[in-house]
């Protein structure tokens, strides 16, 4: 069991519907204390580095990252996180509709922690999100990060 702490997710998703539905599913699991959502790759990096409008933000427990994003793609965001001294050990889970082999290979190439493909069936989606919350919010032991 992880140490008692707030569980926060950062959801990087450009599609409003997807974002709302994901948030609903996450909330339903009743594990995550707070969800923040950003719409593109640039915002995601700003958030993680606490820059601009996100000044003072703490690092999330885990980042749920879509791949096809405006301005800066999910893979670019991932590579920047892994190249950043302060962010490199942050757990990142790709959550996307793409099951493309190249995307999967690239994501693992950048040491993604997990790669999840959104199922079309919403029951399954719910199950997946609920397991995800349990795994990353309860069972997983994240590194201690100083903020």
């Amino acid at each position, binding site marked *: 069991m992880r140490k008692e702490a707030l569980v926060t997710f950062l959801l990087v998703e450009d*599609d*409003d*519907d997807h974002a709302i539905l994901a948030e609903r599913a996450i909330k339903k699991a009743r594990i995550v204390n707070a969800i923040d959502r950003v719409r593109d790759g640039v915002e995601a990096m700003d958030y993680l580095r606490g820059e601009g409008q996100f000044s003072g933000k703490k690092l999330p427990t885990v980042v749920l990252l879509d*791949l*096809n994003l*405006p*301005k800066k793609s999910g893979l670019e965001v991932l590579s920047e996180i892994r190249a950043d001294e302060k962010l490199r050990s942050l757990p990142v889970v790709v959550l996307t*509709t793409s099951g493309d082999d190249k995307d999967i290979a690239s994501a693992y190439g950048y040491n993604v922690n997990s790669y999840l493909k959104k199922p079309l069936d919403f029951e399954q989606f719910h199950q997946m999100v609920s397991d995800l919350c349990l795994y990353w919010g309860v069972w997983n032991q994240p590194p201690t990060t100083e903020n």
Partner: protein
Amino acid sequence: MSSRPMPTDLESCEMEVISRPEFIQPHGVLLVLREKTFVIERISLNAKEYFGLEPEELIGRKVTEFVSAANQASLEDLLSSEVVTYPNPLNISVASGAETCDYDGIAHRADGHIILELENRRSVSFRSNAASRGIEHHFGLTSRTLDLIRNLPSIAEAGAAVCRELKDFTGFDRVMLYLFAPDNHGEVIAEAKEPELEPFLGLHFPAGDIPKNARDLYIKNLIRLIADVNANPVGLYPAQGDLDMSMSALRAVSPFHIKYLQNMGVASSMSISLVEGDRLWGLLACHHYQGPMLVPCSTRVSCVHYGIVIASQLQVMMRSYFSRDLSLRKEEISREVKILSRSADLHSTIETRAPELIRLCNADGMAFLDDDTIFTDGSTPSKATIVELWKRCPRGPDTKVYACESIDETFSDIDMDCSPVAGFLVIHCSHDWQLMFFRKEYLHEIRWGGDPGDPQAEKKVLTPRHSFAEWVESVKGHCHPWTEIDLLVAEELRSVFMVFVMHQAVVLQKLYDELREKNVEIQQFAYSVSHDLKSPLVTINGWIAALDDELAAGNYDEAREAFERIRAAATRMGRLIEDLLAFSKIGRMKGEIDLIDMDELCQDIHEEFQILLGEKGITLEIDGNLPSFHGYETEVRRAMENLISNAIKYGCTNDQPRIGISGKKLENAYRFSVRDNGEGIEPEYQSRIFELFQRLDTSHSGTGVGLASVAKVAQFHRGKCGVNSAAGQGAEFWIEFGELGEN
């Protein structure tokens, strides 16, 4: 009178010192005189016929003793002069008893002695006696011949005229012009003869017919008369001696040569050497069959001069014929090269031009190897042998053309049947492209002087036929040598092929690039189906579940919202599918190239967007006189629509949104711009926005296909597109259409 011993075998022929035979022909007398005193040291055994005394009675006496008183002083003066060869013939009157007889004296120096030969002039009734007919006759012969041959178009015709003139002048039954090849075998290239005689024109004679020692003498002494083939040679007194007779007019003939002439039925012969530098390149050979020909010295002198002048004239002509032939051939090459280089399909052109190509290379056949197919024309070996030869022949960066004159000799380690060819030439073009030319065996093309296959000839010892066997052996399995011009032709052909091969490589590369582009496009499509098309489905499914929840909880307002979102997602999905389909059609349903009136086209689009523009309060300004150009109208319209719709969606954040359309003709393209006064686009995102499904702003209803379509339309019009913008400065999207021309 003694007679010469007769050699019996051919081997001794080359060994024989023919310049020192110690015998003379019997139609004159030869005296060896001591310098200054003119004392007779040796004399031919027929001396009595001329001096009325036996040789032994003459030895030790001054020759001038026997010359008529009037002639003595002038003869002594003449013989004292320091020359090698005297101005022959000398007029010498010999007083023998009461009789005085005039002779042609021929004197020269050799071995530290003066050699004086006397030929009977009185008894000679020769038709072209230059002495009796005057020097004008000699000049007449030379100048008339020069006039005759000057404008003749070939060496054969010029040679024929020379032979006719010389035959007429000397009265011989046959006069031939021999030309010696680099291997010294001779060919009769011109002839004049009595009508009843068998022609020798075109016959080849083996090099052995004129051995090296004989050839050396022909170069030293430019004329050689064998007055009577059947006459018995006469020895010298005293017999012991070793006299250099190479410049002697009366020098006895090698018994081999006598046999040779007798076998040909020749009674008398005379040869005039055609020499350039130290090379005997030809002979004017005269044969007489009816009997001896006592050609007087003065006539022979005329013939020597004739030979010198004619030799140089013929050489000049041969050189000019050669360069004329070379330039003709070069013209032919360039003509053929033009035909080949213009052809779109070199393979079939090579096949149809094969006979011309073969002729250009003076070959008998050719083969064209392309990867695994072999085309052949004319005389070639079997295809298996062709491949084997090609594999065996050397190649490398410096071996662009390889020529082989004898397959048997060069590739003696392999046992293959090359018939009917003996040699070949390969033009290496590319790894899998080769052109080969073949030549038949040299031997097969030659008409021999005499029949080498005649079994009777085999039995005749000391006939010229024996030397054939040796010669035939040396050229067996050889083709005509590939000359410098042949190689030049080959190089020319190669350069044409190289251009073609490279052009083909370029075409292939282009096809490959296009294919690769298509492949990338298809992959993009597949990716979009797996991601972007699925995205609204995920949404719809998600909201359906939410709708279920809300209805169960009795939250009708939330249910209503879920329902609206489902409808929106479904609509978006439909639009996405339509956009993708339209995108995929760009460049595939091109239609006709038309002259597009851009003023009209932009006005149409303006009207189309009228309502939308009105709703958003956007001003659209279109410049007048937009340039018209040739293109695919449907696609150009789509591109312009997309650019304007893009500007309406993303470029109208200003309070007073304005869009401007302009266009201009560039050097090789037409450029149209759509300007807005919105937020602009930061430089780092500018390159991505023309990619499929790349959107900077997902708050609008775009599908991410519009600008990708613009890029694709530009590409199909050999143009390009782009954006000029900076943050907060508005954006100018531009597209360039290349010159397509009409069709």
